[in-house]
């Protein structure tokens, strides 16, 4: 328990301090706004476009393919755990699985699905 006491004290101080930084300026400061102060940043350049713009469609295509192959890879895991017990049968099933995936992969590749134009 003891090592956590110091953590708890640290956490308490951090909470109080950060709350104080948030609340005290609102109570103590006298607001005198002007144009410069209203800017998003008081230094640097004004943003010229909306943040979080659109990604190219290509991005989504690659992301989709990634999601599929990523999760299919997870299917290897149960087989890998039981590999010795499953023997040739398991190996055969896995080879079928990989070949099927491979044909799909080749199809996508040949059709230009992986090209970043």
């Amino acid at each position, binding site marked *: 328990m003891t090592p956590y006491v110091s953590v708890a004290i640290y956490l308490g101080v951090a909470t109080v301090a950060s709350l104080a930084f948030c609340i005290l300026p609102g109570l103590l400061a006298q607001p005198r706004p002007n144009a410069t102060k209203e800017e998003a940043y008081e230094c640097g350049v004004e943003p010229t476009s909306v943040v979080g713009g659109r990604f190219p469609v290509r991005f989504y295509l690659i992301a*989709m393919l990634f999601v599929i192959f*990523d999760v299919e890879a997870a299917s290897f895991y*149960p087989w890998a755990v039981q590999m010795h017990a499953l023997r040739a049968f398991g190996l055969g099933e896995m080879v079928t699985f990989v070949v099927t995936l491979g044909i799909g992969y080749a199809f996508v590749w040949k059709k230009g699905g992986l090209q970043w134009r």
Partner: protein
Amino acid sequence: MAVGELSNYVTLSAVLFFLGVAGVILRRNPLVMLMGVELMLNASNLALVAFSRAWGSMVGHIFAFLVITVAAAEAAIGLAIIVVVFHRSARVDVDDVTILKG
């Protein structure tokens, strides 16, 4: 696993499931609706794994694996369709999908 513990898991999964249903029914953004469906699938996963432990069988785990794979494939196809439908419009909103009126 104790009965009370199981009912906790099942309750949580039911809550998640209805959050997913609400997401699909109430939201108008197809991406969010798709996320609602994924939430429903994951609620099923949680219940599957909990039941599987309660009954002491592996079937639920295998089922959950199947569901995860399906969810990924569904997400991929769903994204593809959403991109195809909306890649010319500035807004992603199912209320703009109006050619077919049922």
